[in-house]
């Protein structure tokens, strides 16, 4: 059960934050089909930042202290904190990269009034191309990990020893599930999810962004700068998606990147629609999708009620079925709720001052 919850969270959290990224953009009136591309860019830049920061002596010493502490010698509490700080720094760098990359989409769709779907598709093509081109030049292969072959887990994974609990002691169900073998990034992302949802729904700024996605002409008549608000929406969207991409690469891929996030950006779009553009529904949808991803990845060794039987494996359903189920469910939900589904009214329509 512990394993199931942990794995589900690992898959669900990046989905959740990227889906919220989609909400920010669409609520401001711009369809962000480029979530996948922005995630790839964020993952690439984030992992690159980790590689470069690995060369900094302070971080190197911290990593050595932690590894020797795990082996049973020495004191490492400040070293833990240093490494977690490095993780946060890389998350921020990935967010900035995502924000800058998303400017391409805002420029095309806001200033040039271009087709947003095609603009987004261009970004989806550009991100893997650029990152793979550079990855191949940097490491001479298609997957870039951390320098020196270190795994992301050995540097950033929080273990029970971090809390002063011995390696052989039990932390109880809650401790084992939510503290041992977790990433700080997961919890920061949840925090950010709540914070950004509050900003979008409870502040004046959020209301203004949303008004631009519903009726930009009315918003403009009240003195709101629609261009600025749409730029803000897409840029925040880019930052969240870029960070989500890095969190995905760090927590589920062991801090490696290969110009691909296995369709997570598109899955996030599905979650967004599934959640009807509302944060709480999105969180639930992301958990559901995360659960399916987790089952598909590890159903053969999943012992749900700890009785020694791998129940899902014994049922004999292929992992590919579990993988395609979320997409089928999304289509069915879309079909059933198409009448009541409430997409932002003005999404996809370039803002034209003259159209009142």
């Amino acid at each position: 059960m512990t394993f199931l919850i942990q794995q589900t969270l690992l898959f669900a959290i990046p989905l959740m934050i990227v889906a919220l990224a989609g909400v920010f953009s669409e609520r401001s009136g711009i369809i962000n089909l480029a979530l996948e591309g922005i995630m790839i860019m964020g993952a690439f830049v984030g992992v690159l930042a980790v590689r470069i920061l690995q060369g900094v002596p302070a971080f190197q010493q911290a990593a050595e202290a932690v590894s020797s502490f795990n082996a049973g010698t020495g004191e490492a509490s400040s070293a833990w904190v240093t490494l977690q700080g490095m993780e946060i720094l890389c998350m921020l760098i990935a967010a900035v990269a995502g924000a800058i990359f998303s400017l391409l989409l805002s420029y095309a769709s806001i200033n040039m009034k271009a087709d947003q779907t095609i603009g987004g598709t261009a970004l989806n093509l550009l991100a893997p191309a650029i990152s793979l081109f550079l990855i191949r030049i940097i490491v001479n292969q298609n997957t870039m990990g951390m320098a020196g072959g270190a795994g992301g887990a050995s540097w950033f994974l929080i273990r029970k020893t971090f809390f002063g609990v011995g390696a052989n002691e039990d932390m109880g169900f809650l401790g084992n599930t939510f503290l041992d073998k977790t990433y700080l990034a997961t919890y920061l992302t949840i925090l950010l999810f709540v914070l950004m949802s509050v900003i979008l729904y409870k502040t004046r700024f959020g209301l203004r962004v949303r008004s631009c996605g519903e009726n930009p002409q009315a918003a403009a008549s009240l003195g709101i700068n629609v261009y600025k608000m749409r730029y803000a929406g897409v840029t925040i969207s880019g930052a969240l998606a870029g960070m989500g991409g890095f969190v995905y690469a760090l927590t589920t891929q062991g801090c490696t990147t290969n110009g691909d996030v296995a369709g997570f950006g598109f899955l996030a779009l599905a979650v967004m629609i599934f959640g009807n553009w509302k944060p709480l529904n999105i969180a639930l949808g992301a958990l559901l999708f995360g659960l399916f991803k987790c089952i598909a990845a590890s159903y053969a060794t999943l012992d749900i009620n700890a009785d020694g039987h791998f129940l899902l494996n014994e049922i004999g359903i292929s992992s590919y079925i579990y993988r395609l189920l979320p997409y089928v469910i999304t289509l069915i939900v879309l079909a059933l709720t198409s009448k009541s589904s409430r997409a932002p009214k003005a999404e996809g329509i370039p803002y034209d001052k003259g159209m009142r």
Partner: protein
Amino acid sequence: MNKSPLLKKAGTQKLLASLLSILIGLFFGSLLVLIVGLTTSNIGGKGAWDGIRLIFIGLFSKSRDAAGNLVFGINTTNIGNMLFRATPLIMTGLSVAISQKTGLFNIGAPGQYLMGTMVTLMIALSIPSTAVPPFVIWILAFLGGCLAGALWGSIPGMLKAFLNINEVIACIMTNWIAANLVTWLFDIARFSTIKGAFYCQTKWKIADGTFKNLIENTKSGYIYKTTWNNVATPKLGLDKLFPGSQVNAGILVAILIAVAVFIIINKTTFGFQLKACGSNRHAARYAGIKDRANIIYSMAIAGALAAAGASLYYLSGNTEFNWHTDQTLPAIGFNGIPVALLAMNNPVGVIFSGIFMAMLNIIGTQLTKFTAYNEYITDVIIAVIVYLSAFSLALRTLIAGKKKTVVANDANAEKKPAAPPAPKDAKETTPPADAKTEKGGAQA
């Protein structure tokens, strides 16, 4: 700006806008090559110059001479391979173009392509060529593939027509469903229950009745080539014309289909109805056109075309299919979008833009072969071209010389893609031994 009557024609402006996008794309690619070359110690200025020359005239590169300089000239192998790779690109390009005519954005071409691949291969491999003439199997496999694509394409079409679900979202969902479905079906499918008893000619014996190639150890993860069952597209002497290449009659089939689509769109009532629905669905309905039916037809035809591309590609006899597609979608499907955009959705134009896209593909392999760069630079160029196509209207007004201010705006647009930071600490840059494992194109 020259304001001759020729420049005022819509067709000329479209053509010039496309050519301008291509040029800007190539220049941006060259710029990236130059920056990376100058900042990477073991490439340097000379390596960058080689890379830039290959980007522009890589189709005519032949080899390096003893002194290490690039040799250029007519390279028939490259040209033949270009035509071979253009075949599926023309088909997926047509698929995207015809849906655009009806106002739909068919981003589902990868899924339709995969469904076509699966049905084509299953038919081509499971009918024994000892009992049925190979050309009959070829036709059955081709038509079966098209039918599968048409059915798969009509799903988003129906969702759009009856429930008004955005076809882009529906297409993306069906893409990933297809990716997992195809992998799953190839995993479990058997075409013979009698173990080791299935003979096709005397050439081969299927080990356990699956489609997975278990005979050649080096081909794990691949489906058998159709030539195992003696099914392959005829060469029609094209291999003599372009010795050493993989070209076959598929390219002629693709060109014929493109011309047929052109005639249907522009010269028939059906084509007119499709376009009418694209211009204004409600007005079309008011005029008595069945808008729902036309949306479904349009997506079904688009699906059939994308799947036909897959059929032509995998029936060639040169290509193998890696059946583990659950995590990736075929790039050929997505590249149908730039092909259609560059051709401004003109079916005959798609022939040329498809060949151009295939040329970029060849340039990519030449870059990997002869320089420290790799083939992904051509994907960057394609992405820049798509990005520019997104505001092709602005480019066209620029060419027509109506709005001079657009010039300044566009200049900014070109600089922006450079924003993602270029890393500068490349370590080893010898050409990789095992580059990207290509799904198709493995030589027989």
